[in-house]
């Protein structure tokens, strides 16, 4: 449904606006922008976590978290992620070779330094959704070659 496009356009606009907020061109400015985008994603993720179908039992095993990440990816991006692995000690690496949210950006190394801005929201989204489901986590992203990217999720069960 076309509402997916609405999300993509909104996300692109948020990256352009919130991501360019700080006039400080140095690393401090960029960090604040990324933090704002990540925070917005976190907030959306928390609320999204509340909306997800809760027919699966509570996460007791690692496999549940893996399955959850897979399902969430399909739900959010309408495609399977291309790779998912874990070190069995709470770290999960999600790999996607063509994340739709990155596709608007041109391919090519010159845009690589902008890539974190396009992924910050999604990092927050993952972190927020997991939080609602009882997991503290740290989510970071890395890009080797656009449009492929990796999200690293380090999970700690809270409380």
């Amino acid at each position: 449904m076309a509402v997916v496009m609405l999300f993509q356009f909104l996300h692109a606009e948020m990256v352009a606006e919130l991501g360019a907020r700080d006039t400080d061109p140095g690393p401090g400015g960029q960090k604040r922008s990324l933090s704002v985008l990540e925070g917005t994603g976190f907030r959306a993720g928390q609320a999204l976590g509340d909306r997800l179908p809760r027919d699966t039992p509570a996460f007791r095993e690692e496999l549940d978290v893996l399955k959850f990440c897979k399902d969430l990816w399909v739900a959010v991006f309408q495609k399977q992620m291309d790779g998912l692995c874990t070190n069995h000690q709470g770290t999960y690496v999600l790999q996607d070779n063509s994340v739709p949210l990155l596709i608007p950006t041109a391919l090519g190394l010159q845009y690589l330094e902008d890539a974190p801005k396009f992924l910050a929201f999604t990092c927050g989204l993952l972190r927020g959704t997991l939080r609602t489901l009882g997991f503290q986590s740290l989510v970071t992203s890395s890009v080797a070659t656009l449009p492929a990217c990796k999200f690293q999720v380090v999970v700690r069960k809270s409380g």
Partner: protein
Amino acid sequence: MSRPAHGRPEYHKINKDLFVLTYGALVAQLCKDYEKDEDVNKYLDKMGYGIGTRLVEDFLARSCVGRCHSYSEITDIIAQVAFKMYLGITPSVTCNNSSRNEFSLILDKNPLVEFVEELPAGRSSLCYCNLLCGIIRGALEMVHLAADVTFLQDRLKGDSVTEIGITFLKKLDEKKYRRKK
């Protein structure tokens, strides 16, 4: 664009929820950044404008609407095709003046506020959905139509309906945009 995943109807809902919840998070962030409601409203409108200028291409590609011959036709298309396509609702359209350039879209349902019960405290002048006004304005400008688009009534502010007013202004100079044959 790929088709949605087979089966699970909840995925479709997630897409819509994702947009609505992202929008809510954005408004919350802007409320943190700007003390005055007018500033948040302006910013939402500005962002909407940016989205509208790009959305219109997507819309035209998906809908294959033909050339319109009146403001009334255009407003009908916004309500019955565009709103339906992107938000799954069909606002009703009324014409507000005899010159037939002022219209209202009456939103009976509004998915953007699905999870919003009331405006945040101290934010009584916030036009929560102002992004929509900017989107319409930006999209119209891309097809050479200047318009003022604002919320005339808002259920979140206690009005009985949510009403978006579209006033078509002078048509932008077509000569500037006409391609040379």
